[in-house]
Every structure is written in C-alpha cells, then in structure tokens.
C-alpha cells in the first residue's frame, strides 16, 4: 500500500506538523520569557512554599500514627472550661418570656414565632 506518493504525503504531513509544533513552542517560550523578564510571576517562590506547606500538612493529618486534632474529643478549652454537648445556660425567651435552655432555644423560638415547619398556630 505504500507507494512513493504515500511516503511523500506522510513526510509532508510530518513536516507541517513539526513546523506547527515549533511555532507553538516558540510562542509559549516568548510569552513566558516576557512574563519572567517583567517580573509578572515574582511570587512564584512564595506560592511554591505555600503549596509545600499545605501538602506537608495534609500528609501529617492523614498519617494514622498521628493523634489527629480533629478526631480527639475536647477535654478542656484554652480557658480550662468544659462544655456539655447541649448548652445548658438558661435565659428568657424574648418573644414569650419563658425560661429556655440555650441548646434548645432555636427550635423553641421557631415554634414560638410561628415560623418554620413545626410552627404552632398562634
């Protein structure tokens, strides 16, 4: 199937492709040359450092041998306090005056104000 014409066509198309590729490569090189010379990418080092720190941080967090902060339950906060899972502070509802525990305030207020899905008809 490969006569002299076939070879010539293949050669020609390879040649054109090579030309186009060269042209694109020089284009990109010229563009990058300008960007570098004009200092438009001056933060490259800082960006790479940030990237390195993030990758390092992720690796440390993913390491099972590390006691991950996110997994440990809180014992005390920085002020030495502990808090229950549902807030127990009591205060008066500003809509109806009843005494409500903080952790249950939102669902109470929703009904109290007549809003939301579970609203009580006033």
């Amino acid at each position: 199937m490969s006569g002299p014409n076939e070879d010539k066509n293949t050669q020609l198309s390879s040649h054109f492709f090579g030309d186009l590729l060269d042209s694109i490569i020089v284009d990109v090189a010229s563009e990058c040359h300008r960007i570098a010379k004009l200092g438009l990418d001056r933060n490259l080092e800082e960006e790479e450092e940030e990237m390195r720190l993030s990758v390092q941080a992720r690796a440390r967090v993913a390491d099972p041998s590390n006691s991950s902060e996110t997994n440990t339950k809180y014992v005390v906060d920085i002020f030495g306090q502990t808090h229950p899972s549902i807030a127990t502070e009591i205060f008066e509802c500003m809509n109806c005056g009843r005494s409500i525990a903080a952790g249950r305030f939102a669902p109470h207020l929703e009904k109290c104000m007549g809003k939301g899905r579970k609203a009580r008809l006033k």
Partner: protein
Amino acid sequence: MCLRSSSYTSPKPCKHLADYKLRHAFNGYDSLQNCLKTTPIGRTRVDNHNTKTPRCNFCNGYQGRLYICLMCSSISCSTHILLHTQSKSGHDVAIDIERSELYCCLCCDQVYDPDFDKVVVSEQIKGSCPGRSNKRRRLNSGMELDLKKSKQLIAMRDGRAKSCYPLGLRGLNNLGNTCFMNSVLQALLHAPPLRNYFLSDHHNRDECKRRYGEKLCLLCDIGALVSAMFSGDRSPYSPAQFLYSWWQHSSNLASYEEQDAHEFFISVLDGIHEKESKVRNSSKDDGDCQCIAHRAFSGLLRSDVTCTTCGFTSTTYDPCVDISLNLDTVNSSAAEKTGLSTLSGCLNLFTRAERLGSDSKLHCQNCQELRDTSKQLSISRLPLVLCLHIKRFEHSLIRKTSRKIDQYLQFPFALDMTPYLSSSIVRSRFGNRMFAFECENTDSSAEYEIFAVIAHSGMLESGHYVTYLHVNNQWYKCDDAWICEVDEGIVRASQCYMLFYVQKLLYYKANKDLSCNVSVESR
C-alpha cells in the same frame, strides 16, 4: 493620564538596544506602526501590506521564525538573522514578525522596551475600540477609625480576662443547629474593620434606641455581641437576641434546621446595609455605599464581553461583597497535572476568557450583527476584607438533588490578588505589554493576609461548621462553645468553605492593637 504601574518591572535594555534608541529614538517604531495588525484575540503581527508571503532575504525560506530589521526592514529567518547583523553594521535590533517582539541579534535574545510596547498597544487599542472609561473610585480608607479609641475600650475591660489570651476569643453556644451562624459570626467579629467599628462605638446603642426607637436593630445586636466577646468574660456566649433579630429580618430563612453559612453571611451584610441606608435615608447603590458592611467587604467586578469577529469589547461593572468560586476540579488542566485543586486555580478559572456558545450570540455594536463572543471577568477594585466562597454545594434543578463536593482545596495564608485585577487581566489580553492602561488602580494594595477560615465537615444535610481564627500569630479553632489552640497545619489541611483575607497593611496594624496587656488586677 499616565499612571505608573508597580505590577511589572521594566527590564534594563541590552547595550545594543540602548545604542539603537540613542541613535534613532522612535523612528523605527513609528514607521512600523502602520504595519502592525492585530487579531480580535489580541495577537499582533507585522504585516508589510504585501500580499506575498514574507521570505528570508538570504535563503528565501518562509518557514520558522522570521525577523524584520528595524533599520532597513529586510526580513531574515532565525538561521540567517546573525548574518544580516554582521553584514550591515548597526542593524542589531529586529522584530519577530509573528509576535511583534523585539529581538537583539547580537544578544540572541528577546528584549523589551516600554516605548515599543506603547506603540504596539496603541495600535491594538485603535483596532478594537475599548469600552467606556473607568471612573476611578477612591477607596474610603476611613478604616483607621479611632483605633486609639478602641484600644482604650479594650484596656478598660473586666479584669476577669483569663490568662494571656487575646481579647475577643470567646465561644458561642449552639442554640440548636446554629453552627452555621456561630461560624460566620466568629469570622465577622474578627474582621478588623467591623471589630474596630463596633468597639469604637460607632453605632451607639443608646442613641439608636433614642433616635429610632425601634425594638429591633441588627446593628445594635452585633454591637452587643462584640462587646460581649471583648468583655473579658470567657464563658460561652449565647447569641439568642441576635438570632431573634435576624429571624425577624430574614423571615424566609427562619427555621430550625441547618442553614448554609454563606447564605447567612450575605443575609447579615444585607441586614446591616438595610438598617444603615434607612438611617441615612439614602438609596445609594452598593458601589458607593458607606455602611460598615460595604466599606469592609464591597469590591467591584468588571466584565468584558468581546466580539470574536472584530475585537470590539463592551465593559460593565458590578459591585460585589464576596466572590463565589467554582472548584477547579480535575476537569481543569492544572489540577489534572498535580491532582490538587488550588485557590489560584479557582481564581484563574474565575478570570479566564470564556467563549460563549454559538447559541448565545450577542449583538456587536461594531459589526451591527449577532456575533460569537468571549467573556472575561476581573476585579476592578479590591475590598478591604476579601471573602472567598468555595461552591461546594451543588444544587441540580433538573434532578432536584443537591450534593456536596468534598474535594480538598489548597489555599495560601498570604494571597497576592494582582494577577486577577482588571489591570493585569487587560494587560495580558494585550500580550503583557508595558503600558499604562487606564484601569490601573494603584491606590490600594493587592496583598492580603488570611485571618479566618470557615470549614465544613460531614454531609450536606448533617454537616458541621467550625471557624479557624488567626489572632496574634496563633491559630484558634472555634467550634461553637469550644475554643482551642491548633497548629497551622490543621488549618491548611481543613476543608475550607469560606476564606477571609484582609489587606496586609490593615492586618498588621490590627494585630498590634490586639496584643494583650496582661493586667493582673486583684479584686
């Protein structure tokens, strides 16, 4: 109006280019001006008006890179350009025909001259008739509001301040699925402009009640919140009054269920704005509004729509209080390479030139016809506090489902927004030429420092929000009532949902004021 730009450096010319300039000034450039041709996408080439293909004088070749001599306009290919220089003394500088870049034949390198760039850009602008001129908006830098006054207020506080932790750190009780609210409040109350505004008592609660007598004022409630946070009392605070006020304001969002933190953020800023514009009896648009919400968060986005046939660009401006970014998932080339999504990748995606489909042709004023267009966003004016929202929640209207994108996103602690400014984007559209484009905005810095991160963990419906705060060089995790110290690595590795950056200059000033004065007062 010639503005000096700080975003690029003008490289020193090689001695051959310098010599040429001394001897011939702009003669070569001027004669070239008529031969420059710009395509609608901004590529400029040298075109001698001949219909014949340009060929090398030595080998008659037309392939590869061709250069036109600045002195005699003879054309040589890259192989023979050196021969030309050697044969004619003083013919040292040529121009790359394809890209209109200066080339020094003796240095064998691309060289740069702002005067040449000016010529090229003038030609490019002439060819594409730019959009309407940009009125420079001065940033109200009244953010150095009474920092002295707020310092005094902090110092006078309750001696109950437990140990040497910065003031303002205080847990917020979860009132029932309100971690979305707590996380945003922690970030807002530590945004320097807002914190200073309320600590300096710019919204005086007594005066507000006296003047307007309204029972509900979101600003009063935020003020009360700030006072409570900075009081020195470290037991967790219950923002019940605030919740009550907010539900009155945004009744459509008032329900006991987990909400979207970003939606809440927008709603609060809106509430502040509404109250302030009522107070001032003004209906200024967001761009010029002087309410504290807009003074802190308002920026300006620029949208350029370019006709791909003739290059005519029409420009519009829209104010914004934050920027919502799509994740640069593995569909984008950068993420594909490293497998990592980055904030800069998202910002690049946001500011890339996007070709609108053929089914959304627009009417071009120049061509007087419907044409294919390319749209590009950029930031015309940066805010004092930059809030970046990562769109992790996808809502499909067709399938009526929502899903969360858990993909990790890398983000920096120090962020330079220069590449996303309109000045940079427009400049890159003109081939990164050295030119004082009219949209230069050099009165505000583009360097930012992070101060808060809102992270989301878990599923869409049953997730949890926490806020990481950076105060006095230490990171703290605010998980409802719990405030803990964390290592910066934890923050970097977290799944960020909203990122809060403040202009660097403001950041360092703000942190100086917060350095705690340990006053052990015996009571």
